[in-house]
């Protein structure tokens, strides 16, 4: 390996680290903001004042006001709770569920493995959003049901990864040593398998946050997620579509909020993948 290549790799590593810090900070800011959104809004996001309805962006109302005179900036900030927080919850649920199923399949094997993997095949052989639509619709909408619908279709990917990783770990030499030393199944799984397989799983879930956020917003947009007056970006957009001609800021502010958040999480996900696997190129 020539000196130039080594230097290039070092440079690359330091830019990846810098990207990690920048995007990580932005993502943490977003999450903190969504968590404390109730305290960050300049106005009450539910307060109606018809005298100032549909005002264009101004110094008092940075993003203007909607048709009931509610401050758009406040509504967008308040919407981050439903949008970002639920997405993180959703990703956490599918990661945990998928990992649990995958580790069980890999560890137990036999008919349990066969049955669970066939079930996951069914999900993987089907366009996810189509099924999520049907499930969310039949459960009757609402943010909670949209999360259930997306969780129900998204776990198999994680189960696959966790299963293959567990199988690989099971075959290692040191796993034999662990077993010989007399550790019980629970201890082996929690202390030895999980820490070793978590890396690839977490990278996958980081890469999934952006997609999940968009799908959740899409369900809300179709009226199958959060329902007005609860501020949620997707439903805010569909709710105000009729006003797009006259006051586009009402419809587009939540859209831009989704775009920026998805982009930050996508950038962070890509960076973490590059960091975890320096060989991968973009």
């Amino acid at each position, binding site marked *: 390996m020539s000196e130039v290549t080594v230097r290039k790799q070092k440079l690359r590593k330091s830019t990846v680290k810098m990207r990690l810090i920048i995007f990580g900070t932005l993502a943490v800011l977003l999450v903190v903001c969504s968590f404390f959104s109730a305290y960050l809004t300049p106005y009450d996001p539910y307060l109606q004042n018809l005298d100032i309805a549909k005002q264009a962006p101004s110094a008092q109302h940075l993003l203007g006001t909607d048709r009931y005179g509610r401050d758009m900036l406040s509504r967008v900030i308040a919407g981050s709770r439903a949008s970002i927080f639920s997405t993180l919850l959703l990703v956490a649920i599918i990661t945990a569920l998928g990992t649990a199923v995958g580790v069980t399949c890999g560890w137990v094997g036999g008919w349990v493995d066969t049955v669970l993997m066939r079930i996951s095949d069914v999900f993987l052989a089907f366009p996810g*959003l*189509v099924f999520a639509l049907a*499930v969310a619709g039949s459960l009757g909408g609402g943010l909670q049901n949209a999360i259930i619908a997306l969780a129900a279709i998204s776990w198999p990917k994680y189960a696959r990864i966790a299963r293959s990783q567990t199988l690989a770990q099971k075959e290692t030499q040191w796993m034999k040593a662990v077993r010989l030393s007399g550790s019980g199944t629970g201890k082996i799984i929690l202390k030895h398998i999980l820490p070793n397989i978590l890396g690839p799983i977490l990278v996958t879930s980081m890469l999934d946050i*952006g997609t999940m956020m968009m799908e959740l*917003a899409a369900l809300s947009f179709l009226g199958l997620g959060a329902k007005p007056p609860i501020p949620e970006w*997707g439903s805010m957009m569909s709710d105000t579509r009729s006003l797009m001609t006259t006051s586009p800021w009402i*419809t587009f502010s939540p*859209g831009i909020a989704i*775009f920026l958040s998805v982009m930050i999480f996508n950038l962070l996900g890509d960076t973490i993948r590059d960091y975890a696997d320096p060989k991968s190129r973009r």
Partner: protein
Amino acid sequence: MKKYIGKRLLQLIPVLLGITFLSFAMMRLAGSDTVTEMYGDKGAVSQQIIDAKRAELGLDRPFLVQYGSWLKGLLTGDMGVSYVSGKNVFQTFVSKLPATLLLTALSIVATVVISIPLGILAAVKHDRFTDYFLRVFSFVGNSLPNFFVALLLMQLFSIKWKLLPVISKGTTVQSAILPTLTLAIAMSAKYMRQVRATVLEELNKDYVLGAKARGVRGSVTLWKSVLKSAMLTIVTLLALSIGSLLGGTAIIESIFMWDGVGKLAVDSITMRDYPMIQAYVVWMAIIYVMVNLITDILYHVLDPRIRLGVQEG
């Protein structure tokens, strides 16, 4: 080959059973059904009428019996009648299918036309300005939800410049432009990245360097060798993205009022029109599995070394 196709079609059966059973179960678990949706907003309807309607639609029977009779109907080609319109589900569905297939085909063509040349260009100009520019473009496209793209395009083309109709008036070319573009933008962004990565990987192989050393012109290697082998992956990836396209059409069709099965599905979901939703789920599964099967066969045609899992000898 025939044996392989037969085997794959047989595999479709458990997938369909699983999917329909799950969506059936989910719907029955839900608190409200089509009857409560129908009478809900009319206020005082006596419990007697509600019960009678339930009995008429067969909703009072046990869950498994309902699923069984639906399945039996499906096997004889009868998908039931819509709870809402009272029309035959199969006929309604088939009448709306061409519009969706047209939209899907147009978006795939648009995606191929946009993303393959740009992806190759980005790979050839690796780490130069063009590459960075295209990567940013693809990244932005990847982070935009497609309903947002739809609204942006509507705002620009229909409202500001008044070039195209806001909502579609029948299945015409003019009405198809915006929905096609919306679906193509989202897909191109994702797909361009994959094309770039595939071509780049191929360009880094030793034979390319060897050809260069022997004095073969770069463009000749690119067109004659690199793209030929990269096509294999490119075709597969395109077929895989059809799944997300099918989901996407539901949203885009409802936004642009494009009268296809996606819009039909969303409308049926709001009305809890079970037979219609089930038909949608079944059809989408069939289309999806068929597309995957065709991809595998194409794969075999493009690269005869791949055996398609058929045991020989």
